[in-house]
């Protein structure tokens, strides 16, 4: 399940999200860093191709389910303007066993960073800004 959120990502419930038959739950949280490539970041803007991102995430999740024995794979990703320390993405994987949960979570996070049509623009203290990962002129 994939959700894009313009609002801050809500805290997970205290009792967790795994059901009774999921012995393991692995959570990845990616937060905005205050420094990147030696520069002070004052804000990070995320932009997404909403529906295309959702469909590509579902493909990634399906690949993870085929490769690892997992139950639920959930992702919430921010869009809009974020400050250093803000939660940008959360991936939750539940499984019967921890090995599958750890492996699937790593796979999903690596693939979403590589493949989802989502972009980030860093804003720096000197008022300049730059879209990340763009090829040079």
């Amino acid at each position: 399940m994939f959700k894009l959120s313009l609002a801050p990502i809500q805290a997970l419930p205290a009792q967790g999200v795994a059901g009774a038959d999921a012995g393991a739950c692995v959570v990845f949280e990616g937060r905005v860093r205050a420094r990147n490539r030696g520069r002070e970041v004052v804000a990070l803007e995320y932009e997404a191709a909403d529906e295309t991102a959702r469909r590509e995430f579902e493909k990634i999740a399906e690949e993870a389910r085929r490769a690892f024995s997992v139950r639920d794979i959930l992702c919430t990703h921010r869009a809009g303007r974020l400050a250093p320390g803000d939660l940008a993405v959360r991936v939750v994987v539940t499984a019967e066993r921890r090995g599958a949960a750890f492996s699937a979570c790593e796979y999903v996070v690596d693939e979403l960073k590589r493949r989802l049509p989502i972009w980030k623009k860093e804003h720096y203290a000197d008022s300049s800004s730059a879209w990340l990962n763009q090829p040079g002129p």
Partner: protein
Amino acid sequence: MKSVRVRYYAALREQRGLPLEIVDTPAETAAELYDELRARHGFRLAREHLRVALNGDITGWNSPLRADDIVEFLPPSAGG
């Protein structure tokens, strides 16, 4: 000629100055459409650095264009 809806994102959106436009084009494939638009607007991103999605699905550049398709040109990913 066919009418398609083109969506731009991130650096490409800034270069075009628009997030979305309707384009009448003789292009038969997504690649031909991008080449046409790049020649017209001077985009600084070469096609080899982009991906393309048609109607919400990331697909190959040689995919055929149909009338009313939603075409999204996707700069290199930087999510997560």
